[in-house]
């Protein structure tokens, strides 16, 4: 079988499938160990209950559903909450070293939307620890690793997915893989927007590949804009500033010095949120009787509050707001050392890229496109898509997060569902017969991939098309959405599609970034269209999706997910699928944790 993507989910899937005795090919778009998982900072959410014994899978489940505004796939949220602790302990058995409690167990930290301290972490470089652990474990498991390889199309036999076709970056040579099962673990779509925390790889490859062969995508309107990205200097705009800063006591202030997050606490979080700064501080320092500060409300809400401050003229010097951790020197004797120890890579990042010492000065931050809740529609237990033989896990799959993801739930999602995808894909591969590749599909894909060279340099510059698309999505389908603007965006996306058909490059196929950019455009355009169409269709505001023309939640939309799928005529079709009825025992869990 074949795993496409070698971040947390792909590596975990490959390890599991290999353990099941299946021959596994693992495709990395970059070098092994460089995937976007490496950027994750805060931690892995798992109800280990090491720091607060009141925590359990039930509370984690209820927190995840509340964060997702109840349009999550409840079964995925249940499996995730139940299995995450085992996945974390397993990482430790493979060599990961997490920070410790005083009695030597895995330490857990506070994070937005989590009722109790829940995130297993290593300073603020948890993603690096996780990917390196999986990588170093994986290389001894007989995986067939293909680095710097990009898949441009999935291959099918009837409706079954039986392989993938793409190019290796080094020489530009094409290669087709035959596989009895394929797992997509390609991550996110951040590059569809101008300001993003994602690397060049986040072009929605899995979303686009699955869509092209007829799989369904759901929840594409739900894009997470992380409230705190760097905003100055311009070249670092979008780079993530971990929520861990707020978990350690960092506060948000506007230009008037006001902690504006206290001004707008949503009703369904009021009982869990501190109503004064003192209580909030005590919470961050582990006082179990204190409630969390409003800075640790869910990301969608914090991002919108920041946008409001900026729009109403109370922004920081460079058009963001202030995030201050230096203030804790009023509370702690060795505050600068404490900050450097708890947030080493944030210290390093601001020092070197912005010339700011976060132990003495406030940071300037603003929202950045971070994560997509939407993705390939999968079966909760097996992670199989709507097409036989095609599985998806991690960010490119949808369901667990609903309308908004809680920080820390991504790394645990990668582990829990990466493992499940590997397990069930291996099982599928064992149970289903051999497959045959269709040469015509390969020929078509080859000539399409080579077309940019035939058009040459006189044609459209692919970088320019990408930049224009990013500008459109940023300005018209961003944090605050309006019907008329999105209709305009749709028209522009249609225009970019035509321009993409005319993108051209010159030179040779060896490591040719312009060519790669031209080929990535297709996925970016599919994702952009799916986000825009779904966002137009959801005429309400919920989680990461905020409509200025429909600023409130609308109950009918709380009962369904929006599906996008390729119609027989090639156009993108939008439909609704009702949420599955939640079993009464899970409803009870939610009620108990209200």
């Amino acid at each position, binding site marked *: 079988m074949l795993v496409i993507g070698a971040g947390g989910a792909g590596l975990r899937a490959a390890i599991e499938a290999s353990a099941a005795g299946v021959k596994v090919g693992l495709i990395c778009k970059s070098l092994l160990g460089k995937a976007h998982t*490496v950027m994750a900072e805060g931690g892995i959410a798992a109800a280990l209950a090491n720091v607060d014994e009141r925590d359990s899978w039930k509370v984690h489940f209820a927190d995840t559903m509340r964060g997702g505004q109840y349009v999550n796939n409840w079964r995925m949220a249940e499996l995730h909450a139940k299995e995450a602790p085992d996945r974390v302990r397993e990482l430790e058995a493979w060599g990961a070293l997490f920070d410790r409690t005083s009695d030597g167990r895995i330490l857990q930290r506070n994070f937005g939307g989590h009722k109790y301290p829940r995130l297993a972490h290593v300073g603020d*470089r948890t993603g690096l620890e996780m990917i390196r652990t999986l990588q170093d474990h994986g290389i001894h498991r007989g995986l067939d690793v293909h680095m710097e390889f990009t898949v441009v199309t999935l291959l099918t036999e009837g409706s079954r997915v039986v392989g993938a076709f793409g190019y290796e970056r*080094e020489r530009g040579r094409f290669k087709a893989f035959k596989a009895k099962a394929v797992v997509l673990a390609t991550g996110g779509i951040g590059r569809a927007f101008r300001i993003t925390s994602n*690397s060049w790889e986040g072009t929605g490859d899995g979303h686009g590949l699955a869509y092209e062969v007829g799989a369904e995508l759901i929840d594409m309107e739900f894009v997470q804009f992380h409230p705190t990205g760097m905003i100055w200097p311009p070249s670092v705009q979008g780079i993530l500033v971990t929520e861990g800063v707020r978990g350690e006591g960092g506060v948000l202030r506007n230009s008037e010095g006001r902690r504006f997050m206290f001004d707008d606490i949503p009703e369904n979080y009021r009982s869990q949120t501190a109503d004064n700064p003192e209580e909030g501080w005590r919470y961050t320092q582990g006082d179990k009787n204190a409630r969390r500060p409003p800075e640790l409300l869910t990301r969608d809400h914090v991002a919108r509050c920041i946008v409001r401050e900026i729009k109403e003229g109370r922004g920081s010097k460079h058009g963001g707001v202030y995030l201050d951790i230096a203030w804790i020197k009023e509370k702690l004797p060795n505050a600068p050392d404490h900050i450097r120890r708890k947030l080493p890579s944030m210290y390093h*990042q601001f020092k070197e890229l912005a010339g700011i010492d976060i132990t003495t000065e406030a940071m300037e931050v603003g929202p950045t496109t971070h994560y997509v809740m939407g993705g390939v529609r999968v079966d909760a237990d097996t992670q199989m898509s709507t097409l036989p033989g095609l599985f998806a896990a991690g960010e490119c799959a949808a369901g667990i997060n609903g309308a908004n993801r809680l920080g820390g739930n991504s790394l645990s999602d990668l582990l829990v569902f990466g493992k499940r995808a590997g397990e069930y894909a291996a099982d599928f591969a064992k149970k289903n017969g051999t497959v045959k590749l269709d040469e015509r599909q390969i020929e078509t894909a080859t000539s399409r991939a080579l077309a940019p060279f035939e058009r040459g340099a006189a044609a459209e510059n692919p970088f320019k098309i990408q930049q224009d698309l990013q500008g459109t999505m940023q300005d018209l389908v961003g944090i605050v959405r309006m019907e008329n603007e999105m209709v305009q965006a749709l028209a522009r996306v249609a225009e970019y599609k035509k321009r993409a058909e005319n993108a051209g490059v*010159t030179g040779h196929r060896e490591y040719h970034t312009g060519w790669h950019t031209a080929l990535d455009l297709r996925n970016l355009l599919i994702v952009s269209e799916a986000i825009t169409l779904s966002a137009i269709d959801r005429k309400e505001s919920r989680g990461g999706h905020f409509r200025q023309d429909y600023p409130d939640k609308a109950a009918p939309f709380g009962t369904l997910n929006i599906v996008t799928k390729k119609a027989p005529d090639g156009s993108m079709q939008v439909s609704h699928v009702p949420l599955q009825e939640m079993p009464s025992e899970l409803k009870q869990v939610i009620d108990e944790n209200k």
Partner: protein
Amino acid sequence: MTSATFRIWRGNRETGRFQDYTTPISEGMVVLDAVHRIQADQANDLAVRWNCKAGKCGSCSAEINGNPKLMCMTRLDTIDLSQPVTVEPMRAFPLIKDLVTDVSWNFRVKEGIKPFKPRKPDAPDGTWRISQREVDRVQEFRKCIECFLCQDVCHILRDHHLHSEFIGPRFLLYSAALEMHPLDTEDRLKDLKDKNGIGYCNITRCCTKVCPEHITITENAIIPLKERVVDEFYDPLSKLLRVFRS
């Protein structure tokens, strides 16, 4: 807006030369931004490897004005822009194209190092008890982002090309991280001496100087490993004990 000139290596496995590109620059830019701007506006086929753009993934290693650095963490306001800024690929590895080198040797080396092997769990539920102090001791080594700049400057690899006999600072550091892991029970000392060439390192500290993560590779990782190897194989007392035992 001002501009600056970048003298970038353009080439493939066989040939190559520097080519000058002048591009506009603005406040806070890093070398990688300039390379990207050149790529988008003037040289679509310019090959450069990058991912996170925040010093966390270790992909964009290069030699900037002769200094091994991450392009994403090298601010233009730290460089003299009155002269063209040279940007070259890492020279200790074979060139693929332009700024991209073939670093696959590093991945093969890692596979040859004995993997992590934990002691039996401490608690009946299958978990371990580790103190924060034990974690802190190896945390420094685990910060490594595998940019391979330490390998690039190590003269044993760069000048003497002893790739088949010496694993280089990155993997001495990796070995140290495993050897000093509080749970690990594997013994890698014999391999370090016989197969991985720890004796070649003559502690010139070049690796430590270029590490973008500021890991004290030489003092904290390599020297303690060397001491362990010496204690194990060259200590006269234990040598005597070994004779008696056999």
